[in-house]
């Protein structure tokens, strides 16, 4: 049955725990106890009163008891159907329907009971059997209904939805009333169940026995149902059935409507009904209590929920506030970033401008450098032209003298062949020297095509030929120590320019300081696979304060007419950058000593 499987008696879903554990069944022991007590009571009664005495009939007693039963039964029906309306379970339904049928049917029984009117007549009907013909079907119907309550799972939740169960009740009552009416109408044609003496016919006894068995069976089934589901209603139904069974047993055992046991069975049935009624009422109270607890729990849950919602609301508000604050903060950051970005852009632009300015300035510096180098070159050329002039002065003078002498001799007619040839030879020597000198100067300024291996002594010879005159003027003596035939791999003309530069610097120093016996010492050697040429003078040396700066560009101690201060800078550049060598200076004993390593 659905109820037994899906719900407990409160209608709440059963947890697996309650299914596994054997639940308490308080009514069961009571059922057993009452059954034993009733059995003992009936055995006792039979032992005392067999056969039961027929007592003087009290005409209103049975109808009054029946009226009480109607009241109780209708109450039970009301309570059971009310339960059904809530729980929609077949047990409640069939219990309610059974008791409803009982209430309605017993009204006919009550009215058909003989002796209600003067002369021993009933209110309705005319025969003693009529009342029995009413009561036995009613008892049978109740028995069947209560049996159905324990066995049949109809109506389930879906059947009789809404108010349809009420219509089923109305139809059922109409059916019962119709049955009652038909029994009264056709009472004459019905077989006799009760004699005028009140004794039951065998048919009545058999019927009683059958219904008794139905009740007894129903009591067992209901008890089992109760044990299985824990629903208390089948337990109470079981009581009722048990009591009804014993009542019928007693009625049948008395064999007479007016027997003592027949009277007693009324009380037994009433007892059973009362148990039913109060059982249902206590069930109601319990359910109410459960509902109240549920309501309270719900209220608590609602309160908790309310609290949670409030908390949620609070959290939500807080969250919104924080989101807002965060958003504002982010917005501020974004604005700040934007500002900084703009600043960076500006800074970048300024940097770019500066870079452009710097590049421009560098270009200007480069241009100035180029001009200065050009200037320096021009100055060097001027210097060399002066030197050429010096170099040529004497030979030109000699040539002039030779030519004039020849002319004079010719005019005297004293020219002879030998003298003329010798003079001519002499003139050609002089011219050859002059030619070599300008050749040196020419090659001196020619840019080197490629690095070659050249002999340093050869370079020195040419240099001395070029600038010797200006050195001789100051009576500079040049001492060359050629330890070996030193060859250097480099740019010959550039190397010559370096030597010239250094020697002219020495010459300027001699002139400036009026050195008495000016001397230049040139030493050539080879050290660790490198050619070394040192050029030293005795002009007193370079002041220590400026010795570190003499190779700097534009550094000069001479007047502006003597050069831009690029000579030694260019010399260093040529040796170190072009030839991968080294040009250094130090102060030796008598003067400066330049050292070229290539």
């Amino acid at each position, binding site marked *: 049955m659905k109820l037994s499987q899906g719900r407990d008696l409160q209608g709440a879903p059963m947890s697996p725990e309650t299914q596994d554990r054997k639940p308490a069944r308080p009514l069961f022991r009571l059922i057993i106890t009452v059954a034993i007590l009733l059995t003992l009571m009936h055995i006792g009664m039979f032992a005392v009163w067999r056969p039961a005495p027929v007592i003087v009939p009290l005409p209103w007693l049975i109808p009054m008891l029946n009226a009480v039963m109607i009241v109780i039964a209708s109450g039970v029906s009301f309570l059971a159907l009310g339960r059904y309306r809530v729980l929609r379970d077949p047990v409640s339904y069939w219990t309610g329907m059974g008791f409803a049928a009982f209430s309605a049917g017993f009204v006919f029984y009550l009215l058909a009971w003989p002796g209600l009117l003067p002369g021993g007549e009933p209110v309705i009907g005319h025969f003693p059997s009529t009342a029995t013909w009413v009561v036995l079907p009613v008892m049978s119907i109740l028995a069947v209904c209560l049996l159905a309550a324990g066995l049949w799972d109809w109506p389930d939740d879906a059947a009789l939805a809404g108010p349809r169960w009420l219509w089923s009740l109305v139809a059922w009552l109409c059916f019962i009333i119709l049955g009652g009416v038909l029994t009264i109408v056709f009472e004459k044609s019905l077989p006799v169940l009760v004699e005028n003496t009140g004794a039951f016919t065998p048919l009545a006894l058999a019927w009683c026995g059958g219904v008794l068995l139905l009740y007894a069976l129903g009591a067992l089934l209901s008890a089992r149902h109760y044990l299985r589901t824990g629903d208390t209603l089948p337990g109470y139904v079981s009581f009722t059935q048990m009591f009804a069974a014993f009542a019928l047993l007693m009625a049948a055992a008395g064999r007479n409507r007016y027997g003592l046991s027949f009277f007693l069975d009324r009380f037994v049935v009433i007892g059973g009904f009362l148990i039913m009624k109060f059982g249902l009422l206590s069930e109601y109270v319990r359910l109410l209590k459960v509902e109240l607890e549920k309501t309270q729990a719900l209220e608590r849950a609602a309160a908790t929920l309310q609290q949670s919602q409030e908390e949620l609301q609070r959290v939500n508000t807080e969250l919104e506030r924080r989101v807002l604050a965060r958003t504002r903060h982010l917005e501020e950051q974004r604005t700040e970033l934007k500002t900084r970005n703009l600043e960076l852009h500006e800074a970048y632009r300024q940097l770019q401008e500066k870079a452009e300015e710097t590049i421009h300035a560098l270009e200007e510096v480069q241009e100035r450098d180029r001009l200065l180098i050009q200037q320096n070159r021009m100055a060097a050329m001027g210097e060399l032209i002066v030197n050429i*002039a010096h170099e040529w002065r004497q030979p030109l*003078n000699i040539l002039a*003298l030779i030519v*004039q002498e020849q002319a004079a001799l010719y005019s*005297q007619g004293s020219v002879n062949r030998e003298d003329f040839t010798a003079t001519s030879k002499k003139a050609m020597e002089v011219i050859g020297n002059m030619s070599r000198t300008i050749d040196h100067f020419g090659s001196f300024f020619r840019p080197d095509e490629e690095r070659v291996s050249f002999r340093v002594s050869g370079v020195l010879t040419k240099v001395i030929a070029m600038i010797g005159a200006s050195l*001789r*003027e100051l009576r500079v003596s040049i001492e060359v120590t050629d330890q070996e035939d030193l060859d250097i791999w480099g740019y010959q003309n550039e190397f010559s320019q370096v030597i010239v530069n250094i020697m002219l610097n020495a010459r300027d120093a001699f002139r400036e300081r009026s050195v008495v016996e000016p001397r230049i010492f040139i030493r050539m050697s080879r050290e660790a696979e490198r050619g070394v040429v040192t050029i030293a003078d005795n002009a007193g040396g370079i002041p220590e304060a400026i010795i570190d700066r003499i190779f700097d560009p534009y550094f000069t101690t001479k007047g502006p007419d003597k050069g831009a201060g690029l000579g030694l800078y260019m010399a260093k550049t040529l040796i170190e950058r072009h030839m991968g060598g080294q040009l250094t200076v130090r102060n030796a004993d008598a003067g400066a000593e330049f050292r070229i390593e290539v």
Partner: protein
Amino acid sequence: MELTQSPVSVSLLLVEDEKTARDLIARMLARKFPNCTIYTAVNGIEGMEIFKQFTPEIVIADIKMPVMDGLEMIREIKSAYAKVSCIVATAYSDKISIDKMERIGICSYLLKPLDFDELFAAIEKCSAEIKQQAG
């Protein structure tokens, strides 16, 4: 050029460091002035010594010379013997100012390359001056 002998009769000192030039000039002077006594020196110091020894009337000197240059030598000679006539030869680039020449007392001034006509004219002019002073 025409070389006609001059009757000038003075003693001459020629100071010139270049041998070829010195010999050639001395040779030409001897041809031009057969009556003159000609002394030669290679530099200022030697020139001084020879001057002290022979006291020539005219000194012909190259300005630029090693050891002691011409002007220096003339200054020395003049300090000792003021009446001597001096002729100096110099390159264009080394030419000295007229002020300086007058201060030292130079008779004539020649540019190199030397022109013999100019040299001879200068000697004749100087000897004429000497004669004037003597006369």
